[in-house]
């Protein structure tokens, strides 16, 4: 190994260490941005070293430079535009899209290698390369199509409801068997590009069928898992072309993505395997429980609600998915400011899985510049509900559903916000519709609860106007 090659490998190693340090720093909000910067510079170093290698090596054809430049311009430009313009609440589908192209690229690295080496009986196709190529293609292609479906579900292009039909399980088994046979032929020495193409096509179908049956609300966990898959595919690509940068960074993402998937599933109180098996959320899609049977629902208008809020001394705001769906973050902050100006003590109760992605509420409220110290975690705020005059629930349902305290329901065991301990509760949502779990919510029929039926954005604006009127500003 020449001194130059050694230098390149050392840069790769330092870059890998940079990724680790970056992830480490991202463990706390205070240092997260610094971590991201370290990681960015590590990436720049790895790419620059590779560029230096290509120039020093001098074997790259003119067309090679052209396609590399053109591809990078198209892909990088598109990625940058999407990354810059995406609405914050659309981030999960974008991450999924990047998983798709990342997994696809990892698979293509191996395909490219195979196509290069396969002619004339493929003398260069050592067992090491064959095994890792097949692993890379399997993981990469499944991730590619699976991530596209996941992104489609979140974007609303593909139905968010679990898509299942009779025989889909059997079809999956047939496809899996088919790809195993094709992989077997490749191992046995059939170095045919067409065969590899057939394998890719079959795997693509498997990826689609894997994600279709999973409900849209489970997508954040699925995306995290596919993230781990992509990392593993990249590591395999590293084995194929013998590049340590890909091996280390890929394995890092594979492992950290796996742990993250587990942490996310734990926060939602659901086993990862049950999520992958799919079918959850059916109730949500099929028949959201409308109108709460016999129990009396008290509804309230903005003016009455405004009086309760304006004369309270302590108010806790409980945001949920509805706040994100209505994009009402600025309205809620405007209302909170009005109340604070009157001397009301206002804080926000953030449930770890409120919304549809972890940290959803934090990101949303931070966008409206809500001061960080007002955001209270569940553990912190639960004891305070008992001292609270009004709990204002905005588009939250499952995270405040007392049914979680009873066994036998879909959300049993999930810790919830103790909103029902507050002296009175006001709920803003559009109807008696169910949330993600499809369960009825007895909080809404509690005698101390009043329902303000409205879209969150419109409802909050009306409330703020009423408060303003009331205090005469």
């Amino acid at each position, binding site marked *: 190994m020449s001194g130059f090659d050694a230098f390149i490998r050392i840069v790769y190693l330092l870059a890998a260490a940079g990724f*680790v340090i970056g*992830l480490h720093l991202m*463990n*706390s909000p205070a240092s*997260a*941005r610094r971590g991201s910067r370290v990681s*960015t510079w590590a*990436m720049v170093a*790895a*790419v620059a070293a*590779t560029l230096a290698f290509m120039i020093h090596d001098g*074997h790259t054809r003119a067309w*090679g430079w052209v*396609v*590399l430049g*053109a*591809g990078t311009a*198209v*892909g*990088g*430009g598109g990625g*940058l535009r*999407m*990354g810059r313009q995406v609405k*914050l609440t659309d*981030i999960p589908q974008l*991450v999924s*899209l990047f998983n798709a*192209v990342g997994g696809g*690229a*990892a698979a*293509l*690295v191996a395909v*490219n290698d195979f196509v290069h080496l396969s002619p004339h009986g493929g003398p260069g196709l050592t067992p*090491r390369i064959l095994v890792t190529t097949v692993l890379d293609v399997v993981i990469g292609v499944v991730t590619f199509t699976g991530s596209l479906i996941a992104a489609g579900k979140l974007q609303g292009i593909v139905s968010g409801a679990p898509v299942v039909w009779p025989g889909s399980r059997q079809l999956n088994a047939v496809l899996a068997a088919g790809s195993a046979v094709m992989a077997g032929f490749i191992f046995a020495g059939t170095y045919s590009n067409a065969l590899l193409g057939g394998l890719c096509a079959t795997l693509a179908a498997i990826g689609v069928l894997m994600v279709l049956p999973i409900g849209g609300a489970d997508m954040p966990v699925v*995306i995290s898992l596919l*993230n*781990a898959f*992509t*990392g593993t595919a*990249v*590591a395999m690509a*590293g*084995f194929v072309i*013998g590049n340590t*940068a890909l*091996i280390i*960074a890929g394995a890092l*993402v*594979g*492992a950290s993505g796996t742990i*993250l998937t587990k*942490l*996310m599933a734990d926060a939602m109180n659901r086993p990862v395997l049950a999520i992958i098996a799919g079918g959850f959320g059916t109730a949500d899609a099929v028949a959201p429980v409308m109108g709460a049977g016999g129990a009396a629902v008290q509804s309230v208008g903005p003016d009455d609600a405004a009086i309760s809020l304006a004369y309270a001394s302590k108010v806790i705001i409980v945001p949920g998915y509805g706040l994100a769906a209505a994009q009402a973050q600025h309205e809620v902050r405007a209302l909170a400011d009005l109340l604070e100006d009157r001397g009301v003590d206002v804080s926000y109760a953030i449930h*770890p*899985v409120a919304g549809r992605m*972890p*940290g959803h509420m*934090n990101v949303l409220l931070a966008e409206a510049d809500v001061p960080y110290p007002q955001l209270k*975690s569940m553990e912190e705020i639960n004891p305070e509900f008992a001292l609270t005059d009004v709990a204002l629930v905005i588009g939250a349902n499952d995270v405040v559903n007392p049914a979680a305290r009873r066994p036998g329901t879909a959300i049993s065991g999930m810790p919830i916000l103790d909103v029902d301990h507050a002296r009175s509760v006001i709920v803003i949502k559009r109807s008696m519709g169910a949330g993600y779990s499809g369960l009825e919510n007895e909080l809404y029929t509690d005698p101390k609860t009043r329902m303000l039926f409205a879209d969150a954005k419109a409802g909050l604006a009306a409330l703020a106007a009423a408060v303003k009127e009331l205090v005469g500003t």
Partner: protein
Amino acid sequence: MPASLLSDISIFVLSLLVGFEVISKVPATLHTPLMSAANSIHGIVFVGAMLAAATANDTTGYILAFVTAAFASANLVGGYAVTDRMLQMFRTRPAARRGEPGE
């Protein structure tokens, strides 16, 4: 079994261990940024795309290299752009309290 493969496997396993350890007890709030950060790190596959372009020497090779480069660079550039935007949201803004308009 070549010694280099064994070294690579060792490196792979150790990287897995690092990955497991580094994401130990993250608060739920940071799950989404961390997912996005991991997402951008596998943009390293762009290095693989560059090396594919370096060896391409026929039409198939060029097409494959083009698609690989486009995919990988979208992952890399987009991943970092998104992570960065998301983390900006987590910045503490001490001066942001009152004063400026809520929307």
